[in-house]
C-alpha cells in the first residue's frame, strides 16, 4: 500500500479563471491559470476556497478534470442545496479569481506506468471527472493500456464530456447506461448499473484489471460490492465516494 506522498506544504494560491465551459445544464468545466502548479496525477483533486466580503470562507474539494501537464481544470456539478457549487457553476466567470491548493490524494490515481494492465473505470454521474483526466493522460502518453469506462448517467443530456468521449482512442471502450431517460432509438443500456451489466462489461477477473469506481455513495457501494461478489479482489478496487449535504 506504499504510495507517493504529497511532499511539503500545500499552500493556498490565487488562480485566475480562464474559461467557464458548459458541459451539461448543471455542470461546468472551469479552466484555471495558476502561477505555481507543481503538477498532478490523473485522479487527484484540489481544494477551492471562496471568501465573502465580510471574510467568511467556504472550502470544498473537486476532482481535477485535466490530464497531467495540461492547463489546470476542474469540473463542477451544481448541487441545489450546495453552498459552493452554485457559485462556481452560475456566478463565476472568466477573469475572476479563486483560491486553490493541491494536488491532493495519491491513492485514487493512474500513472499510466503499466500499459499491460486493463483498467475498468466505473462512473456514476459527475464521478466521471477523474476518469476524464485518466483518459486524456492515456491519450497524451500514447499509452495502449486497454480501458473500459462504464458510465451511468441519468439521461444522454446529463452525460458530461460527451463529444470528447465519442472521440475516444482505439483501445478505449465507453459503455453508457442511462438510468432515467433514454432517447428514442437508444440501443445502449438502460437502468441501473447492476450485476448483469458488470458481468457483461467488466474485464474477466483472470485479467486482473485495476478498477476505479467514483460516484455518489450508494452507487459506489453497490458497484464495489457487486464487483467483489463477482470475484474481483478488494485490493484491486479503488473507490472515491461523494455524498452528504453537499458532495465535493
Amino acid at each position, binding site marked *: *500500500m*506504499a*504510495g*507517493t*506522498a*504529497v*511532499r*511539503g*506544504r*500545500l499552500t*493556498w494560491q*490565487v488562480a485566475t479563471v480562464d474559461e467557464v465551459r458548459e458541459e451539461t445544464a448543471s455542470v461546468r468545466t472551469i479552466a484555471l491559470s495558476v502561477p505555481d502548479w507543481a503538477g498532478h496525477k490523473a485522479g487527484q483533486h484540489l481544494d477551492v*476556497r*471562496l*471568501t*465573502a*466580503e465580510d471574510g*467568511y*470562507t*467556504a*472550502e*470544498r*474539494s473537486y476532482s481535477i478534470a485535466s490530464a497531467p501537464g495540461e492547463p489546470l481544470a476542474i469540473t463542477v456539478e451544481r448541487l441545489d442545496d450546495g*453552498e459552493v457549487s452554485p*457559485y462556481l457553476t452560475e*456566478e463565476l466567470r472568466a477573469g*475572476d*479569481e*479563486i*483560491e486553490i491548493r493541491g494536488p*491532493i*490524494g*495519491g*491513492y*485514487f490515481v493512474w500513472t499510466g506506468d503499466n500499459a499491460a494492465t486493463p483498467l475498468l473505470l466505473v462512473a456514476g454521474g459527475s464521478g466521471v471527472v477523474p476518469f476524464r483526466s485518466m483518459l486524456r493522460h492515456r491519450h497524451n502518453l500514447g499509452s495502449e493500456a486497454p480501458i473500459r469506462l462504464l458510465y451511468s448517467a441519468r439521461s444522454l443530456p446529463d452525460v458530461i464530456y460527451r463529444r470528447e468521449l465519442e472521440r475516444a482512442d482505439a483501445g478505449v471502450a465507453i459503455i453508457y447506461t442511462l438510468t432515467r431517460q433514454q432517447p428514442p432509438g437508444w440501443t445502449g443500456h438502460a437502468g441501473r448499473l447492476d450485476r448483469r451489466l458488470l458481468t457483461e462489461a467488466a474485464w474477466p477477473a483472470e485479467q486482473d484489471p485495476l478498477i476505479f469506481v467514483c460516484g455518489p*455513495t450508494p452507487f459506489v*457501494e453497490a458497484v*464495489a*460490492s457487486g*464487483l*467483489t461478489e463477482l470475484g474481483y479482489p*478488494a*485490493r484491486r*478496487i*479503488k*473507490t472515491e*465516494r*461523494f*455524498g*452528504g*449535504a*453537499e458532495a*465535493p
Partner: protein
Amino acid sequence: MSPISRGFRGRRSESPADTARTPPGQYLTSDFPVLSAGPTPHTPLRDWTFSIQQAGTDLRTWTWQELLELPAEEITADIHCVTRWSKLDTRWRAVPIDTLLAHVDHQARFALAFCDGGYTTNVPLADLTGGQAWVAYEYDGRPLAPEHGGPARLLVPHLYFWKSAKWVRGLDLLAADEPGFWERYGYHNYGDPWREQRYAGD
C-alpha cells in the same frame, strides 16, 4: 490576503453555538456521508476479533462476544471529516480504549490501528487514552452499519474522522510512530481539526 469572491455570500449557520463547535474550513451536515478507499468488507461476526498487538505480536485478543461483554459507554461527540463535513452530537455505544489497554502490559507511545480491507491509521497513545477514544459498535442506538465501519470502528472524535478507522480489528502498539494509509498519501500525521491539520505540512 484572500481575494474576495465577487458575489459570494455563503451559507452561515443560524446558530452561533453550532458555529462555535465547527472547526475552521468545516460545514455542518445532518447526513452521515461515507468515504472509504475501497469496497466495504463484510467479516462474519463469528470470525471477528479485536487484538492488541505489540510490534505485530498479539498481546490480547477478544472475540465479538467478549467485546460486547466488556463495560461500554454511551458517547455523544462531534465528528469532523477532512472532506469538510462536521456532524454534531453523534451518539455511540463503545468500549473505551483505556479498558482494553488495562488488559496488557506495554511501554508503547504510538499505535497503528489495523482494519479489514488493509486500512491503517496511526494515533499517539496519549490520544487514545484518558477517555478520548473508543471501539464503537452502535451508532444512534443501532448496530453500526457496514458502510459506516460496522461491526466496529475506532472512535477518536477529537481528531479528523479518518483516524476513527472503520472495520477496525486491532491496535498495534509501537515504540516509534509509523504513518498509516492516508498519512502516507499526504494527509497530516496528527490531524487536529481545530488547527486544520488536513495535509502534511499544515
